[in-house]
């Protein structure tokens, strides 16, 4: 039986980008407003899951040929690397630093090493969620 999922597919095409943008916003807003790597990552994973539901596994794997296990590993490296990086500056493991800089276009921006750590969390959350869903979904 062929299911008719035209509406779902059309809506997904539009809404996917909105969710993705929102998830990135959530990620960057994390230090000041609700959000952060964990929620942002979950939201991105949610968008990808929507894609999986609207289209099938194979199509999605063709559009986004990402190995999520490697993504998880990269995320872990980011987080551990941020922690270990502080050792180079003679401070304990996982000490964060922040500073305010003036960037073109963006104006005064506050930069944190915590964001680097959070990128790791973000990637791990996406990687883990998608690995689990993909392996279970693909299983025949």
């Amino acid at each position: 039986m062929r299911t008719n999922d035209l509406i779902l597919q059309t809506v997904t095409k539009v809404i996917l980008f909105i969710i993705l943008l929102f998830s990135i916003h959530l990620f960057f807003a994390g230090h000041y407003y609700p959000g952060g790597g964990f929620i942002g990552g979950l939201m991105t994973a949610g968008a990808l899951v929507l894609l999986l539901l609207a289209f099938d596994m194979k199509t999605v794997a063709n559009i986004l040929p990402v190995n999520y296990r490697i993504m998880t590993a990269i995320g872990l490296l980011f987080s551990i690397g941020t922690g270990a990086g502080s050792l180079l500056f003679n401070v304990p493991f996982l000490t964060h630093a922040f500073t305010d800089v003036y960037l073109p276009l963006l104006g005064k921006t506050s930069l944190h090493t915590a964001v680097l750590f959070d990128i790791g969390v973000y990637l791990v959350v996406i990687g883990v969620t998608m690995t689990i869903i993909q392996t279970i979904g693909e299983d025949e």
Partner: protein
Amino acid sequence: MSLLHLAIVSPLLLAVIIPIFSKSIRQIHTGWFVLPLPVVLFSYFLSFISTTSHQGTVYESFEWIPSLGINFAAKIDGLGLLFALLISGIGSLVVLYSIYYLEKDKEQLGSFYVYLLMFMGAMFGVVLSDNLIVMYGFWELTSISSFLLIGYWYHREKSRYGAQKSMLITVFGGLAMLGGIILLYIMTGSFSISEIITQSDRVLEHTLLIPALICFLLGAFTKSAQFPFHIWLPDAMEAPTPVSAYLHSATMVKAGIYLVARMSPVFAESPVWLWLVGGFGIVTLFWGSFSAVKQTDLKSILAFSTVSQLGLIMSLLGVGAAALHYDGIDDNVFTVATTAAVFHLINHATFKGSLFMVVGIVDHETGTRDIRKLGGLMHLMPITFTLAIIGAFSMAGLPPFNGFLSKEMFFTGMVKILQMDLFSLSTWGLLFPVLAWIASVFTFIYSMKLVFRTFTGKYKPEGLKKKPHEAPLGMLISPVVLGSLVIIFGLFPNILSHNLISPAMASILPSLLSPGDMFDVHIYFWHGPTPELFMTIGVVILGILLYLTLPKWERAYHLLPEKLTLNKVYDKGLESIQTGSFKLTRFYMNGYIRTYLVYIFAFFILILGYTLYKKDAFVIDTAHVSSIGFYELVLSVLIVVSTITILFAKSRLTSIILLGAVGYTVALFFVVFRAPDLALTQLVIETVSVALFLLCFYHLPKLKKEESKIPFKLTNALISIGVGAIVTAIALSANSTKLFESISQFYVDNTYIRAAGKNMVNVILVDFRGFDTLFEICVLAIAALGIFAMIKLRLTRGKEG
């Protein structure tokens, strides 16, 4: 982070980029990129000699986890420096040798050098850390890199077996050592070795002394392959020969010796220490040399010989501890054992290193290490033969090589035991010199066997896979360097005594020195007609006689039945552990998730209910409860209604959606209570898990009304009600009791000031409690890999289980 720290971790840093070299620049052997590092490090460490030879130390520290007293403290003293020089020096030679030993087209050089560098860095960490926890981390890293190197040719079954065996035994010892470290922390409140040494009086009187001491010795004995843990070392010989030369004779196996030497200032005054270290050492010495004689594989001979030589050094360290019970160093004759231990440590690295390289050459050029197939190679490989003579004669303790000097001192140390009048040494002490002498005879026999069975006798070209010829020049450089050192140290031993031996002794026996003092070490060739000299002459004469009659009495080795060997015990033990745990698991794991849930929940109810009851913790206090609003009421009703509906749902789809509804309503609760982060998280999690359910949907069996029995239903009902009741009780009690001041005020005060963030939840996640988050994402990643492995790899499961 100082230069010293950088030097310690530099091999690890290089290990990260070496794969790039090995992949992109294929025409040059990767070893050439590795070689400069140990050479540079060797010269760097040499520059510290002037400091340590005047009893100075270099101490650099930076804080790692200061709240737990764990700092990466690096300390260079005589003992640490001696080992650092051995590691970098022998390391350079081994890397050079490996360039010619491993062919660049056939082997995976990238992984080889990554493992080797990992090991080198870990070893520097072990010998130069002053913090026990840091040292323990590096210690386990040496076990892991050794595991990887032994299993380097992983397609061979024996390699995998040897790798697993070494891993199991050394990591077991490592864990025991961790226990010892924690016990020491309990006694002294410090992880710093230098600080613990200053409190050694307190340690010696503490009731935990013996357990801590035994834990440490377990670590040392497993690492240094002492009887009965020595069985892993012969199997480790499956590693490529440069690895055997480096890890399994010159450095890693000496980590146990290092540990004993390093902890001597803490424990050595205890008689238990003297007896255990000395006793195990001397038994290992005897057993190793006795077993070496019957081996037919060249590397096995060297493996057992390494076991026995490690035992020798260990026994000397044990006996040397007796010196602590006699005051003053001027007339303290008992320090000679410690001198001999340090001296023999250096000598063993030189002659055994060169012998391993010689055996590697023979293996490389003939294709076999079986002594029964070899013979008559003298004329074909004259340089290798010369090197073998130097190494083996030094090992046998013949003049003018360095082995003779340390062997003589070893005898001196053992004979001196007879003059000691403590710990009933005067009665049982006689065993030490006797066993030492017998072991030396066996050492002599296998040394001769090693050289003469390989290089003299009948040349048998038909049994060899290759046509033998002399090794290429590059392969000979390293053993020639070591061989020359054997002779140089033999003829001029005193270049070592002031620069290396005396500072190292000062680290082992610090309490014998008054400030500014140092051990005056002089090594002589000729002592006059002492008992030691006659012992050596006896060894040579009896050794030659027994070597010539070896074929006649060799059969004696088969008297011990195969079943009783330690290897069999290990194999049987491993097997029964596996079958035993399999049976145990089968007993309670029946494959139904609902059974496991029953276990988990039942335990949950019991343990929490018991605690609530026992601690009298159940309190309901409505004083701080605010009134219930309209929204909360609606949401609660929604949750209750949807939960109850699940029970009566006919189709699975309905129950999934209802469960989702419960989750979303909880999210709404968070919105009402103004917790946007939680609400968002709950929303997305709920969405993803509903989607996951839908994905799995096809795999699940049809939901059918099962005609289940009443007791079954009753248990389930009881458990679900129990869980609900307990959770409610805990929530109410937690809200009603205030045992201590809430820490939330700290976060309110500091979130903006210290972390410059306004979202407290996120700042806690990434900054204040960053460690938790780090481990959480590690757990997540492991879980994902676990699910991946379970589903993707389950086809292969049927074969093994």
